Structure formats: structure tokens, C-alpha cells
């Protein structure tokens, strides 16, 4: 099974306990903050920040739960309150440089597994000794896990303590998380052990280990340290690459001890399979956490697929260096942590007043409302994190605090008052209580793209399908939902009217909302119906190069890719050419998620980009299946018309609109 195939299945017997993170604010816990999706996000927003603040809100409610009963986040908090003891013995210490060994000894004890992750730090110091350095070892906790899991107040306390020990010093750090924290969050002068060894360029004596390298996100995508470990490993061992590396590296899928579940386990398993396939015997990484999570499968007692991975072992980068330098034996029995008895300290519990507003700044508000809810990230995300769901829920929190964009508030008011997004007064109902179908055109087709409205109704008529637009329908609430507003009133009103008959939508946004956020309705997209009766339409040749734009709410949301394309291809003479990225990878029109109203520049830029590509590819026409996409793309197209699929059919039939 490849990682890409890992999809969430509906567990048959979900018990009282919830999936970690599936609570109010989206699935915040399920994001590994690995940044794999960053390059696919059209708006390039800083997801990590949003996730972190969203977790803060959840943490306040006690809803953030790490694996291992959350003991590691607890230990991190405790570390900020007491004084971490030294646990490395048998190394030469001095004050040439400062070395930070991370938390491995805590992991070795608290994990309750027979592990020696501490060996990495020991190997690092022995290697430094060998290279002629006698470091001052500063113990403590960098706070990565509490920071990334949203325990930001506790992190501040810890940071202050650590700053006392580290300020003004030049620090060598082994683990990726410590490196990232000290460098980018503490703003300290740090060098990674990876680069340190690379610069020292030592002579290696034992190079027999067959290795491959797993990029920890914190070194890789966060800090772009890709070459140093590879260069060193190539010299220090028999090195080979895995399939997905560097920017595309698959992560260990557990970050800050969150998100350990059957899905992320499959990602880890797939990563080990990749390592094994590379021909390596040792998967080397430079992050204790990556080591722990990837190694986890070796402690499973029951899974067949785990047993098959017994022969691919996990080693720390520093261990390989220590081994290659001939100063450290990673295969020995004894442990490398040596814990002294501590006199102890009575802890003053932290006086923390949780208040998320401390962490809400303009940048966050900007980031939070940038997302077009296109789900591009979810598509690449190995754990299928529902980012757009998170955004919607997080926006709800902000809106409740009165921090939503003014434009969104206006729209919400308009809907409350007039029942439509555009505050139009005119009712466009077409009652016909006998009709078998209800046509639900949605705000855009009704008030901004009547071309779509007209084409839809005409084609329904041509197919002999009786339809009506009943009195009293209001906006489906798509925009409300995306922008963090309450749509329950709308749901109530519409459901009452829509509940008994099949409902046809011409707008993907309406389709998605009615299908996902409403209950008990029979929702069809117009293309479903057209596809079924296409032979009844007298289609004539249209000699045009056409590009199809996948609406996110039809495509990625429902995997609805083929029907529209099939319809287009039925039209004689049409040449269907494609965007560089389409279907699952398609780039959005830029308008969704309330971006068109609140961040019009972003919406326009994205649409322009898309239309420029259409122009370059020589398209005569861009076709879509969502009036809202068509509206935004059309607004940003100078030459190429953007029409609905039904309008294309109308053209083919030579029907005047």
C-alpha cells in the first residue's frame, strides 16, 4: 500500500472516545505541521500558525491530548518549572562551545520501552570530543511540543528559563526540533550538528553502514537543511536515497505527540517501507522524535506488516557520525543515559490566565481569512488533514470574538435580511408545486450569472423535466459556513422546503453545502442529469479549444471529475485541453472561502494566474460547473470567455440565451 492510498475509512464501531482532535476546532491535532502542503497552497498561507493558535483554544478547553497519555507535553511543562539534571556521562566537557542534547533521556524513561535514544546525544558529544571540542552541555527542554501544540503560555515560561541559560551563546544542536525552536522562535545563534560536521569535514574510519536519510520537517521544509546530512552520510556510510526526499519527504506524521492513530501509523509504515525498498539497513534521521515515531512500529506485537519491517533499523544521524568516527558504538547493550538522583524542588504551579487574544495579531487574522477552502492541502497531506474544516471552525472562533472581516459581516447581515448574498430585494421564485424536481439556483446564478440560470432552466425544459423554484428559498449558507458564521437558520428554512423532492443545483458551492451541511436531502448536480440524458440533446459541432476548470467544491470535495469532462467531450468538434494541474491537483479560482469579498486582491491574482495559463495554452473558452468560479475567473479574464458547461451545450445546440 502506498501512502497515497491511505484514506480514512469509517470505523465501524466508534466508541465514546473521539478521535484525537476531532472536536470543535476542526481536526487541529491531525496536522503534523509538516509543511508538506505549503507548496500547494495557492494563497501560501502560514498554516502552522493558524493550527497553533487554534490548538491554543482547544488546549484551554483541555481538548489537546497527546499520545502516551500526553505525558510528554506534561514533562515539557514540568521542565520549565524545575531544573533539568545532566544525564550524559563519560564525555569530556569544557566550554569551547555549547551543546544542547535535547530530551532523549526523558523519552527513554517515559516511553517505557527498552530504548536508548539518548545514544544520539552521547554520540554527538563523543564526536565533538574527537573533533577537538569540549562543549559545555546545557540541559533542558526547548519546548517544541508545547509550542506546537498550543500550550503557548507554558511555553513562554519555559522559554524564559531556557533563555537564561542560552542567551548570547553559540549552540550546537542535534535534534531538528531544538534547532528550529532556538533558531527561529528563540532567535538564538545555533548551528545544527549536521552542518557542524559538514564544516569540520572529518576523516571517517568505519563506513560500512547501509544508510538512507529521513528528512525531519524541522530541518527540511522548515529550515531547508537538505544537503549537509546527505554530504556527511555519503562520506560516513554507504548511503542511498529513498523515493520521497527533501521538499517532498514524507513526515513521521506525529508532531508534538499529537495525531498518533491508525492513519498516521500507516504513513510511518509506508515511510519505513520506502526506506527498506531503498536497500538501506538503517534509516537515519536527525530528530529524536522522528526516530521514536518511526521506530514505534518495531514495538508492535501484533501486526504482520510491522514484522516485515523488523530489518530496517532506525539510527540517529549523530550515532552514525560517532560510529564512523570510531568513537561510538550504537549497537551496544547498555544505555547512554545516566540519571543522577535529584534533590528535587517543590514546584509553584504556574499562574496562567489563558487568553487567546494575546496571540491574535494582524498577521494571524490575515492568514486565517486567506484560505479559499480549496482543499488542495488535504489532497497532498499524508494524514488527510481537513484544513478547510479547521479554517472554518477557527474563523468561527474569531467571528465570535468579533474579529471577522467587515466584508463578511456585511454579507452575513445581507443574508439575514434578504436571504441572499447580494442583498437583492427581488424574489426570483418560480413556483410549480406539481414539479418533480426543485431547481436550486443559488445566489450567484440568480443575481449575477443569469446566463447559467437561463441555460439550466432551458435545458431542464428541453429534457422534459418539470422543475420549480419554490417560494421562500434562501441562500444555502455556503459563504456563512466558510467564513465562520452560523447557518442553522438557513438550514432550517431551506430544509423545510427542499426535504421532499430531488433538488438540482447548478452551483458547486450550493451542491456541496446542501449535500454536506444539510441532512436528509436528495441533492443532484445539474451535470448528473445532463449526463444521463445527453443523447436527447441535439448537439452540433463547436470548433473550439476548451479548458475545464474543476470547482473545488465539486472536484476535491466529492471526487466529481469525470462527468463534466465527459459531457464536454460529447460535444462534437470540441478539443478539450488541460491545465497543468487538474482534477485532484487543480488550482482553485481564488474566490472561495470568502476570499473574493474579504481579500479581493488575492482572489483576483489567483484567477488571473489561471486565466493567463488558459491564454498561454491557446484556449478559446474556459468551461466550469460553478457560477461562482465562473464569476471570479470571468472577472479576471480579458479575452477568454468563462462559461458554464450548460452554456456550452446551449451554444452547441444553437439555442439563443
Amino acid at each position: 500500500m502506498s501512502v497515497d492510498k491511505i484514506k480514512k475509512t469509517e470505523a465501524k464501531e466508534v466508541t465514546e472516545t473521539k478521535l484525537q482532535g476531532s472536536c470543535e476546532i476542526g481536526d487541529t491535532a491531525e496536522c503534523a505541521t509538516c509543511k508538506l502542503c505549503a507548496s500547494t497552497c495557492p494563497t501560501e498561507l502560514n498554516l502552522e500558525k493558524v493550527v497553533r493558535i487554534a490548538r491554543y483554544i482547544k488546549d484551554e478547553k483541555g481538548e489537546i491530548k497527546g499520545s502516551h497519555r500526553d505525558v510528554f507535553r506534561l514533562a515539557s511543562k514540568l521542565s520549565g518549572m524545575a531544573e533539568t539534571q545532566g544525564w550524559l556521562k563519560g564525555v569530556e566537557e569544557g566550554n569551547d562551545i555549547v551543546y544542547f542534547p535535547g530530551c532523549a533521556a526523558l523519552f527513554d524513561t517515559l516511553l517505557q520501552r527498552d530504548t536508548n535514544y539518548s545514544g544520539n546525544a552521547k554520540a554527538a558529544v563523543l564526536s565533538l570530543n574527537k573533533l577537538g571540542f569540549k562543549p559545555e552541555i546545557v540541559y533542558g527542554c526547548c519546548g517544541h511540543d508545547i509550542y506546537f501544540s498550543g500550550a503557548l503560555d507554558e511555553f513562554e515560561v519555559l522559554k524564559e528559563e531556557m533563555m537564561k541559560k542560552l542567551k548570547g551563546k553559540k549552540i550546537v544542536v542535534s535534534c531538528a526540533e531544538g534547532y528550529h525552536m532556538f533558531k527561529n522562535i528563540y532567535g538564538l545563534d545555533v548551528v545544527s550538528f549536521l552542518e557542524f560536521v559538514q564544516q569540520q569535514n572529518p576523516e571517517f574510519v568505519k563506513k560500512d553502514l547501509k544508510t538512507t536519510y529521513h528528512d525531519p520537517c524541522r530541518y527540511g521544509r522548515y529550515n531547508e537543511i537538505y544537503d549537509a546530512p546527505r554530504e556527511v552520510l555519503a562520506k560516513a556510510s554507504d548511503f542511498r536515497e529513498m523515493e520521497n526526499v527533501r521538499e517532498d519527504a514524507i513526515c513521521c506524521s506525529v508532531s508534538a505527540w499529537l495525531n498518533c492513530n491508525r492513519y498516521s501509523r500507516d504513513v510511518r509504515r509506508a515511510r519505513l517501507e520506502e526506506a527498506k525498498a531503498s536497500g538501506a539497513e538503517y534509516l537515519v534521521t536527525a530528530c529524536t522524535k522522528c526516530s521514536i515515531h518511526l521506530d514505534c512500529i518495531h514495538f508492535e506485537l501484533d501486526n504482520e506488516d510491522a514484522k516485515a519491517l523488523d530489518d530496517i533499523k532506525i539510527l540517529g544521524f549523530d550515532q552514525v557520525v560517532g560510529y564512523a568516527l570510531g568513537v561510538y558504538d550504537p549497537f551496544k547493550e547498555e544505555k547512554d543515559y545516566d540519571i543522577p538522583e535529584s534533590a528535587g524542588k517543590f514546584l509553584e504551579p504556574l499562574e496562567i490566565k489563558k487568553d487567546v487574544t494575546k496571540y491574535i495579531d494582524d498577521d494571524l487574522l490575515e492568514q486565517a481569512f486567506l484560505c479559499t477552502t480549496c482543499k488542495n492541502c488535504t489532497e497532498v497531506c499524508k494524514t488527510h488533514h481537513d484544513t478547510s474544516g479547521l479554517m472554518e471552525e477557527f474563523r468561527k472562533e474569531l467571528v465570535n470574538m468579533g474579529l471577522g472581516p467587515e466584508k463578511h459581516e456585511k454579507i452575513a447581515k445581507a443574508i439575514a435580511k434578504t436571504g441572499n448574498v447580494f442583498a437583492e430585494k427581488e424574489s426570483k421564485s418560480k413556483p410549480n408545486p406539481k414539479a418533480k424536481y426543485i431547481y436550486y439556483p443559488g445566489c450567484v446564478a440568480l443575481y449575477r450569472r443569469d446566463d447559467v440560470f437561463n441555460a439550466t432552466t432551458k435545458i431542464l425544459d428541453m429534457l422534459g423535466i418539470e422543475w420549480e423554484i419554490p417560494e421562500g428559498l434562501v441562500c444555502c449558507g455556503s459563504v456563512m459556513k466558510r467564513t465562520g458564521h452560523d447557518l442553522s437558520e438557513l438550514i432550517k428554512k431551506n430544509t423545510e422546503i427542499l426535504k421532499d423532492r430531488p433538488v438540482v443545483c447548478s452551483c458547486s458551492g450550493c451542491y456541496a453545502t446542501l449535500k454536506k451541511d444539510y441532512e436528509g436531502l436528495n441533492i443532484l448536480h445539474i451535470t448528473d442529469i445532463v449526463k444521463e440524458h445527453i443523447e436527447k440533446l441535439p448537439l452540433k459541432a463547436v470548433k473550439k479549444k476548451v479548458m475545464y476548470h474543476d470547482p473545488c467544491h465539486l472536484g476535491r470535495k466529492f471526487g466529481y471529475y469525470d462527468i463534466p469532462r465527459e459531457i464536454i467531450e460529447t460535444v462534437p468538434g470540441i478539443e478539450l485541453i488541460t491545465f497543468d494541474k487538474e482534477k485532484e491537483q487543480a488550482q482553485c479560482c481564488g474566490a472561495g472561502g470568502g476570499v473574493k469579498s474579504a481579500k479581493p486582491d488575492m482572489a483576483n491574482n489567483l484567477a488571473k494566474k489561471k486565466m493567463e495559463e488558459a491564454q498561454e495554452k491557446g484556449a478559446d473558452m474556459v468551461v466550469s460547473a460553478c457560477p461562482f468560479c465562473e464569476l471570479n475567473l470571468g472577472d479576471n479574464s480579458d479575452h477568454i470567455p468563462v462559461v458554464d458547461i450548460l452554456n456550452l451545450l446551449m451554444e452547441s445546440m444553437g439555442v439563443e440565451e
Partner: protein
Amino acid sequence: MIGVFICFCGNNIGGYVHVPELTEYFNKKEGVIAFDTMFLCSEIGQNLIKEKIEELNLDSVVIASCSPKHHGGIFQACIGEKMNQFKWEFANIREQCAWVTPNKEEATEKAKAIINGAIEKAKLLTDIGTTKVSVTKDVLIIGGGIAGMHASLELSDKGFHVNMVEKKETIGGNMVRFDRIFPTDDCAMCTGSPLLADVAMNPLIDIFSLSEVTEVKGRAGEYIATVVKKPRYVDETKCTACGECTTHCPVEVWSEWDLEMGLRAAIYKPMAQAVPLKNRIERDSCIRCGTCENVCKAGAIMYDDEPREFKLTVGAIVVATGYDLVDLSNTEYHLEHPNVITGLQLERLKVPSGPTEGEILRPSDGKKPKHLLFVQCAGSRDRRHNVYCSKICCMYATKNARLIKAENPEMDITLCYIDMRTAGRGYEEFFDTAREMGIKYLRGNVSEIVPDGEDLIVRVEDTFANEPKAIKADLVVLSTGLIPSQGTRDMGTIIHLVSGADNFLAPVHVKIAPVDTANKGIYIAGTSESPKPIQECITDAGMVASRIATFLKDPEIEIELVTSKINPEVCIKCGTCADNCVYDAIETTGEFYKVLDVSCQSCGKCSVTCPTGAIDLSLYTEDQITRQIDGILASDRDSIIAFSCYQCGYNAADLAGTAKAKISPKIKVIRVPCSGRVTMQHMLYPFYKGAKGVFLAACLEGQCHYIDGNLQAKEKVALAKKSLDIMGVGGHKLNLFNMSSAEGPKFVAAAKRMVEICQ
């Protein structure tokens, strides 16, 4: 809204704690409403609870009163009438607060913290349902001694089909080897043989002799026992027990049944009343000469007989595997000397149908002894052997001394004892007449028996005369202490039963559930539980029969789902939980792991080692315990948290209260089902919230009611201590103390030690 009901318990709580102050205090707390009443367990109290649940639509209830060990059941039933029976939490402010805190102000503050912890936990309580599973009406009785026989008769009288599995070639156990029975001196066989016959003839009782249970699987109401029947080498369906074979068999070896006081052939039946009444070839002594095959007219000899394994499906199990005697050979008692015998051997000599036809003849030369000496407490009340008293030896030695004296007035009979323990109806009178008969009772513990040729010199200090003595005897009878039989000891591994420090099987509660075990549907009777006279074995057996009749009365039993649950989305199927579960309660075969509600014993050990947190124990969830800690520490930050296992530590804490010991008010008990339920997070979290210390009060090693929970806890505590040392918090502030449920003083000592450490 959470309703807090605080009990004065007359003066029992009211005299030590300002109850009205508590009520007032909790009434001010948001989302809480508090009431107090004189006796909460009374009808008035119960009505108050029921009324308020209904009137105020309470979400959950906190009962602040005595230990849940007392009236937990009453309150559960009372609350269950109005809402889910599990939506309440206990605050033990009597045994663990009022009675151990002499200062009223301190006691009141402590009560606040305890109640606050309970309130916080109660906020997270959820409805817990029940489920029904079908039951098999058959019963398995392991061991066919007096306890097993009586239980089987009682049960068959109630209409249950009984499978009796007996290890030996005959049922009857030890009692049918005796001559007479105290305190009535009636003959053992006169009482025993009608019973044996009843069991043998009863159509509802199937007897499997020479058989042993090797495995028990399944769940309460439907246990599947694997039984292995050893070969008898005689066809039970054909043998008529004519004894022709025995008469002709050339072999003569010591008889095990007669405890080597007599001989038997290789083909034999142990006694005339054996059940089943069939001969048996004991393979090790048989020389395969073929004689029996030739003489046996029934053609019953089966040299090629083989062990047979079969399975029995039963709804309930009775363990009545009895006792053995402690082996005193090669000790200061010199049991290996021919003229030192045990009380049980003496019984064989005394039985009229026994090897000496009832004559007391000493083994070395077959002569009648002139100086007979009984040594009491041989192997009992002695740290080198068994610390406990075997309870019956004073009586059985006196019984035999009296009988022998009556028949041989000239014989000099001395009985050396530490104290005579003859408590029981008619027992003291029994002892009195013995002295009147001229039996010499010498108060002194025998220090050594020194062989002197065929005679023996018994060294003892006469503590009345205050002089050491060396008494010459030509036959010494040891009143040997009782130990659990091998079969009884094996039950620990075969059925996962728990035993006490004395290795006898432990009931779930010595006082209020003396025949129940922690495993539903499995009961213990007779001397497998502790040394006791026949009378008590019969009482046990009757009670077991009654318990089983209740348990199996309906076609289905209701099971409360206070079990562990697995969230299939989170579970990575690593197998750790299943590996940890000694009850095989986690089904691992399907696409998802699942806890089998009927098998789960709710110890929570599984959930502690789950890496992902997918599995959690109802009623003691990770969060519920954490919130309870929060609640306690919010009231009293300086607390020392005492996670106490409900089987031992908690009970010991209660007993400390009953004894009105003094315990620092800093100590706050959190009840857990098993010390193995306490996670690393629970051990560390209190420190984060400012607690001064944390300890676990667990069962004695080897006596965990869930087999190994306390050993697992021990490992975890060791690691958590290390991590506390790394973090600089100090590992010495976390400790584990082992204690039995009876050891109140140990809890007090643990608490004291913790207060000293955590200054």
C-alpha cells in the same frame, strides 16, 4: 448541575467535620448544589437523593459519606432509580478523613478537597450501560472433597447439572480418610459414605475421576474448561470392583491413600467406598505381568488406555481443591524418622478398615507405643514454615488423644502446645474432658525432636514450670500445619485466581463476599480458601450453591459495561493492551481490536500502556482521574496524592480510619481499581499542579487481585522516578507501597513516610 450530598453519619462524620460549613461552601460553587443530612444511607437520606435528582434534573451526584465499601451498593441502587446508576462519585469523608484527622478545622479542609476532587471527576461521568449474555446452567466443581461433594449435592438439588472433576482415583477428599470427626466423635465414614453414595448415584452429577482441569477460557456464564483424564488402565464401564485382580496382583508398594502406613497392590481401589467404585492400575508400580488381565472376568483391563482430553462448557465454577500438609521431613521435626508421623497418618492407623485395623502400632516395629506425644503447631505459627495458625490441629489432636486414651488408659499421652485454640461450639468442653481423662497438656513449643534409636527425645520448655524438658516418646504425632494443595496453588495460573500471602485462594472480600472471587461466576469453597473444619466447609459449600443458583437463575446475566473501550480510529493494533490483559478480554482477530465486555475485569492495566491512548477504562478514565487530581489540588495544593487500589490500598486506608489512626490531612486518596491503572501521566501530573508528593498504595507483591498490576506499577514508578530526577523535580517524592487489604498500619506508615519525604 451536580448534586453533592453530605452525610453527618450521626457524630461519625459530624463530630469531626463541620458538615454545615461544607454544605455552605459547595453551595457557593458554580454548577453545584449541596445538601446535608443526618444519615444519608437511611430511607430519608435516599429519598432526599432521589427527590433532588428528579427535581433539579441533576447531571451527576457526589456522595460524601463513609467508604464506598460500606454502602456503595445502596447508593448505586438508589441513584439508579432516577438516573444512570454510574453517574455518581464517592467522597470518602469518614474513614479517610473524619476518623483520621483529629483537628476539626483540618478535617473540614480535607473534606473540602476530597469532595472537590469528586465533583471534578463527576463532571466527566457518562452513562454506562449494561448488556445481557446468555449463560450455561451447568456447573463445574473442581475437587471432590467434602466441600465439593456438598456443593454438588446442593446444586443438583436445585436442579443444576454438575460436572465434578477430581484429581484422585476417588472423590471424598481428606475427610473420608479419618477415623472420627470432632467435635462429635462420630465416625467419618458414617457421615461420609452416604454422601459418597448420594453423589455417585445422582443423575445430575457427572464425576470425572483421575482428572484435572488444565485450562479455563471464556467468560462468566460460559466458561470453557479443558479437562485431562489420566488413564485408569481399567475400563470403568466394565470393572465390577470384584477385587479379583487385587488379590492376585504380585506387587506390594506403600499405599498413598494410607499415607504409607500400609501397602497396596499395583491394581487397587483406595477404599471400599471409593467413588467411582472401580479398580485402577497405578502404572509406575505395575510390572505388567498380565495377571490381572487373566483373572479379570469382566475383561476390564486396558493396558493401552490413554489420557483423554475433553472440554466442558459451564456457567459457573467452584474451586474446592482443598489442602495438603506442610512437609516437615528433614527439619527439626524429623518427619523422616519412622516413628514421627503426621496427624493424618495417625488417622489412617486409627481407621478400623485401615492398614492396622484401627490399632495404634508404631511404624518401626509394629509395637503399641507406651509414650505417645503430640506436637502442636508443627509448621504453623512459625516464621520458618507458615506464619498462620492452621486452626483445626488443636481440635483434631485432642480428638485423637481422647479416642486413644479411652481405648488405652494405660498409655501415657502428652500434648505439647503453644496455646490451645478450641474456639467453637462444644470445643472447649471437648478439650476439658480430654484433660479430665488424664491426657497431659504441656504448654511449651517443641524446639526439637531428637531421634534416639527407635525412640525420640522431644525437647520442650514447660512454660508453666518454667523448666526445659526432654521427654522420651516412642511415637510422636505432628499436628502438621495445612497448606493449600498443589491443585489449589495451580488455580492461580489456570483460572487466574488470586491468593493471599498464605497462598490460599483469596475471596474478593473476606467478610462480605467470602466465597466469591474477583472473577464473576467462579467461587471458592472449603480449605482451598483457608484451613477450616468440616463444618465450615459445609457452610461454604451451601453458600456457594446459593450464590451459583442466584447467578445462574435466569437464562441471561446482566453485565455492567464498566469495562475498557477501544477507539478503533486511534488504535494502531500494536497489541500491547492484549498482551497486558491476563483475562484474554481483548479480541484481536477482526479489523478492529475490541474489548470483550463479558471477559473484561475492569482493572485498567490495558489502558496504561496503550501508546496512542485509544483504550480507556470506563469510570476511571484518564481524564476523570486527572480532573479529580485537579479538584483536590485546587482545594489544597500541598496535598500528597495517594493512588490506592480498591482491593488493598484503599481498604487499608479505610481500616486505618476504622482504627482511628492519625493520618496527615495532606494525604488525599484517589481510588483506582488496580495500581496497574495508574499511568505515568497520573504520577507526574500532580507535581505540575503543585502537589508535594505522590504515592501508590498497592497490594502485596504476588497478591495483586489482577495478577500483576502492582508489578507493572512497580516498573512504571521506577521509570517515572527517573524522569522526575531528570526534570529536577525529585524522584524520591514518588513512591509505591505494598500492603494487604488488612494492613491499615502499613497505610499509616506509608502516609507518614511520604509526609517526611515531602517536607
